[in-house]
């Protein structure tokens, strides 16, 4: 459903800060895939997600979603097809607006916004039902400002917003990295629940190798802006952290996995 071909992106080209983020990137995502993405810092994981989302436009190569070329489509237009959750809990929600107002924004993703009411009573009921599934008590706080919520609650809300209108592809960019371990676990559980309930095609970047192995049906490892390892199905189920570390060392030419990966 999504096909990335020979995509490259360099930041600050021609300056002293030049950084090749992604180079010769190829990836085909199939319908129903739940792919976990791992790789060291600077491997290009977030850049890849941002290229898919349209935050950055590639220097070269093409990205096609369901036979539509979205390589240069503006971010707000392809948002109709994509659900996104970010690493920073502040990024996915509008803090000064209420929970229900945030959900109403997300409910209208991909639709023209006119002079109809920004939120209707019928919607409120629907939001309450959906918030109940998060099991965080947010269904009783519809009008609370989102800035009053904890990081974990905000991420759970963002996740709900990203999937309120079923996206063709769900992009999760280390969405639990800023949370404490217990909350991260809870949000990951919710992610699993929502993804399987709606059978969502998902791309999830993580720094945690155990999570990368535990979740999803396919795992890719990135290094220096390319996919260097792609494993799925039964083979993936047999993986353990040691295997991944070895793979990583092989790929990076004996270089040790960075501390954060080792600790994970």
């Amino acid at each position, binding site marked *: 459903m999504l096909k990335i071909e020979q995509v490259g992106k360099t930041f600050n080209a021609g300056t002293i800060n030049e950084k090749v983020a992604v180079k010769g990137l190829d990836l085909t995502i199939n319908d129903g895939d739940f792919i976990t993405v791992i790789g060291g810092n600077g491997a290009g994981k977030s850049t890849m997600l941002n290229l898919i989302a349209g935050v950055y436009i590639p220097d070269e190569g093409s990205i096609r979603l369901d036979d539509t070329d979205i390589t240069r489509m503006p*971010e707000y237009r392809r948002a109709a097809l994509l659900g996104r959750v*970010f690493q920073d809990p502040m990024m996915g*929600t*509008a803090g000064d607006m209420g929970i229900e107002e945030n959900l109403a924004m997300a409910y209208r993703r991909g639709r023209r*916004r*006119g002079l109809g*009411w*920004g939120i209707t009573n019928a919607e409120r009921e629907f939001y309450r039902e959906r918030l109940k599934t998060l099991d965080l008590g947010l269904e009783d706080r519809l009008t609370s400002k989102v800035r009053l919520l904890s990081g974990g609650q905000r991420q759970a809300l963002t996740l709900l*917003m990203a999937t309120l209108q079923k996206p063709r592809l769900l992009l999760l960019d280390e969405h639990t990295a800023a949370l404490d371990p217990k909350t991260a676990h809870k949000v990951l559980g919710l992610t699993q629940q929502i993804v399987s309930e709606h059978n969502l095609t998902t791309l999830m970047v993580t720094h945690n190798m155990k999570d990368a192995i535990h979740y999803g049906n396919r795992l890719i490892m990135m290094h220096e802006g390319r996919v260097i390892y792609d494993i799925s199905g039964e083979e993936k189920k047999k993986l353990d952290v040691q295997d991944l570390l070895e793979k990583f060392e092989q790929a990076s030419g004996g270089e040790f996995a960075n501390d954060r990966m080792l600790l994970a």
Partner: protein
Amino acid sequence: MGIITGVLSAMPAAISQGLVWGIMALGVYITYRLLDFADLTVDSSICTGGAVSAVLIIAGVHPLVSLVFSILAGMLCGLATGLLHTKLGIPPILAGILTQLGLYSVNMRILGRANVALLGKETIISLGNIPMAILVGAVFSVLVIGAMYWFFGTELGCAIRATGNNQNMVRAQGVNTNTTKLVALMISNGLVGLSGGLLAQYNGYADVSMGRGAIVVGLASVIIGQVVFAQKGNFACLLAAVVAGAVIYYAVIALVMQLGLNTNDMKLFSAAVVAVALAVPNLKKKKSTRKKTAAAAKEG
């Protein structure tokens, strides 16, 4: 004793003036508070609104109808700043300053000279009839607040508020933030234009420098309204507080003028008031963090 009666007798005029400027302050509220865009266009767009109204009235157009054109003229000013920012990537403050400067020439063209008087012309609001001016100002304020309350509850209005809050989130939800910014700037300056039209009629003339420092009056009104009245409450209350802020601002001005402050020193006084009002929240924050760090150091 003389001062007190003097202040009291100056109050009705201050209230009517505050109501007229309050509409401009509502425009500033849209950009400054909702969109988080410091728009300096207003210093000139208020004059554009006033100039259009004055020139049309002299040409025989009904004063009420002339205000429609004041609004449209203001919206065009906002569009100019919006395009400079969204299409050409010029930072908000600079985009506003450029439009503001360019509009000086436009305003001179509209007026034909630096000052156009409305001597003997019928206007819908005038400082010659203060009670009526207060009534008209109040009616316009209520109408504008009602319209804003409705608009910012619509899908488009919500998208604008969200744009001011978190552009990143808004784009991820499929909203073109360039469009929301343009619409917000146009509505804001439309209100500023309306205020300018009313102001020209109220004063009985349009002057090319009538908008100098308008942004400061707008900001002062927004901040005073917020400080004096509760910051919570529904949206309509927040908007009413902005208009009330403008009224208080002009009441204070009337007071210090009665106390003998020179008219020429007023701008300095206004700037100082706004600087203090803008600084207070920041200084409070600093103090509380310093306290916290000190407390933490003690414990540690």
